[in-house]
């Protein structure tokens, strides 16, 4: 078993608690003085920075949600001047505006360190040839893994997502040993390989570092079998840092959270109460080293549980169970976060006052397909075919430009979409 930073990754619990407490105190002081939003929230609760003395005081602090980030769009929660920010990433918000995060030079260094740990944890070494097939750009996946792989000293192929046949050709010719992408894309690559008449023996692949969407053990077995690799689950979200928040080791018994940088909690999503160790609930993170945009008790909306037992691999940080669900209606389609409310705001922009729509997600040939059904109201309806087809194209185009996802739009008659107890069903997910 290899470590990237054994000192930090295998630190004793007591030392880790002490380190977390020190870093939390520093973080709270920084956000209190540098981020008016947090200062106001603390003042409302009668809290001064010195009231937070360590991790035991964490639950006195308010939660931060994705909506809070959106309301402070774009830079409201940054704790440093823009001149200190060297990188900006964004992920989709719950409506039109994205969630924006900024990194200082030191944040990027820490992120690279954590991704180097993650890759090492998942079997990669300096000798590895890592093909980064996560999207590069505003999405944190591509660049996050890229920087970590360079930090590790591996040879990086920054191919980004898509263009699958070319991906496969290079994977074969360049002798790729580690594939980093979403699990559904890994499976798609495997299918395409066999369509191209290639076998897993033609490749040098050993590991898959797969994440950015939830996946099952069945899918893991299928990917491992078809690609002839060990498939490792990694977890991250841009609001916390991006990929590199947590990852499995080769024992695959939960994802090791980088606890020296992020303090995890599990809460009851309804009451906000912290739940006892081992309970299932909503995962909450507080960043304790980030400079650009520290977040306090960020509600990830992911449902999981924590295990504080040291792992057989020797790492001591808490392990989170594979994410088992969401507390909100966010969908992950081909690695892209999609909220039904985003589709709703697009339809409202098009002039529909009370849009009725349904998202139908299916897995066709191992690729997620999103079909958007839109009820044609009198306002949208026209007696001319050309206009209705234009409407169809326009909706698809708007969704594509905002979500970056190609979708099929289907115009349907009113009341086609089932209303249960007055509330419309917005999503039919056939993937499970």
């Amino acid at each position, binding site marked *: 078993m290899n470590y990237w930073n054994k000192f930090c990754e295998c630190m004793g619990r007591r030392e880790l608690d002490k380190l977390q407490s020190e870093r939390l105190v520093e973080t709270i002081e920084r956000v209190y003085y540098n981020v008016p939003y947090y200062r106001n929230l603390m003042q409302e609760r009668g809290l001064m920075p010195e009231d937070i003395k360590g991790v035991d005081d964490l639950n006195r602090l308010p939660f931060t949600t994705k909506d809070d980030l959106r309301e402070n769009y774009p830079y409201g929660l940054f704790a440093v001047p823009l001149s200190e920010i060297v990188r900006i990433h964004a992920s989709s918000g719950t409506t039109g505006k994205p969630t924006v995060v900024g990194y200082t030079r030191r944040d990027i260094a820490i992120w690279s360190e954590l991704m180097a740990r993650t890759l090492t944890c998942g079997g990669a070494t300096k000798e590895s040839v890592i093909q980064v097939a996560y999207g590069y750009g505003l999405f944190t996946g591509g660049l996050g893994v890229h920087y970590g792989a360079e930090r590790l000293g591996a040879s990086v192929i920054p191919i980004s997502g898509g263009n699958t046949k070319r991906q496969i050709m290079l994977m074969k010719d360049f002798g790729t040993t580690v594939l980093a992408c979403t699990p559904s894309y890994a499976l798609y690559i495997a299918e395409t390989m066999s369509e191209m008449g290639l076998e897993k023996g033609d490749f040098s692949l050993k590991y898959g570092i797969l994440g950015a969407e939830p996946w099952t053990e069945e899918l893991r077995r299928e990917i491992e079998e078809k690609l002839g690799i060990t498939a490792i689950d990694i977890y991250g979200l841009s609001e916390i840092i991006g990929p590199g928040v947590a990852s499995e080791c080769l024992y695959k018994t939960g994802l090791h959270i980088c606890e020296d940088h992020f303090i995890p909690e599990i809460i009851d999503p309804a009451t906000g109460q912290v739940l006892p160790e081992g309970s299932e609930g909503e995962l909450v993170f507080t960043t304790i080293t980030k400079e650009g945009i520290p977040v306090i008790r960020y509600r990830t909306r992911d449902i999981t549980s924590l295990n504080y037992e040291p792992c057989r691999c020797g790492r001591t940080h808490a392990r989170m169970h594979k994410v088992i669900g969401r507390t909100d209606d966010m969908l992950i389609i081909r690695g892209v976060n999609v909220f039904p409310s985003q589709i709703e705001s697009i339809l409202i922009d098009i002039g529909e006052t009370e849009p009725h729509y349904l998202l139908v997600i299916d897995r066709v040939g191992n690729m997620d397909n999103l079909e958007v059904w839109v009820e*044609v*109201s*009198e306002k949208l*309806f*026209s*007696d*001319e*075919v*050309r206009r*209705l*087809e234009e409407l169809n194209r326009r909706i698809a185009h708007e969704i594509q430009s905002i979500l970056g996802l190609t979708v099929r739009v*289907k*115009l*349907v*008659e*009113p*009341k*086609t979409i089932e209303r249960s107890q007055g509330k419309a069903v917005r999503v039919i997910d056939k993937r499970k």
Partner: protein
Amino acid sequence: MKVKQISVFLENKKGRLAQLTGILKENNIDISAISVADTANFGIIRMIVSRCDEAIRVIKDAGFTVNTADVLAIEVSDSPGGLHQVLDTLSKNDIEIEYLYSFVRRPSERALILFRIRKIEEAARILGHHNIKVLSPEEIYGL
């Protein structure tokens, strides 16, 4: 001169059109003319009916999406060149047609053509000058 046409949105589903005509039958509403425009996913029904307002109400109540548009109704003789004369006149006067549909009435041997045109008033005036008969709404609804 403008005739009110009802348009109804229909998904391509078996039996859907029959449901629509069933509603009209129950309410004793007569269809004077009908056309169906279809694409791979949906269809648009266009109709001229007796008692237009009532028809709109009952179709809407049944949960269909309905709207109305003004169309121009022309009568020509049912003989070679009848339609051509109308189209040629409109084309020479730079008037574009969105769509049209027609049917022949016997025993009068006259063909009725319904035009969806943006410049409906201008078209009616020009056709009138060329001695082409533009029908009034009253002449149509009772057919």
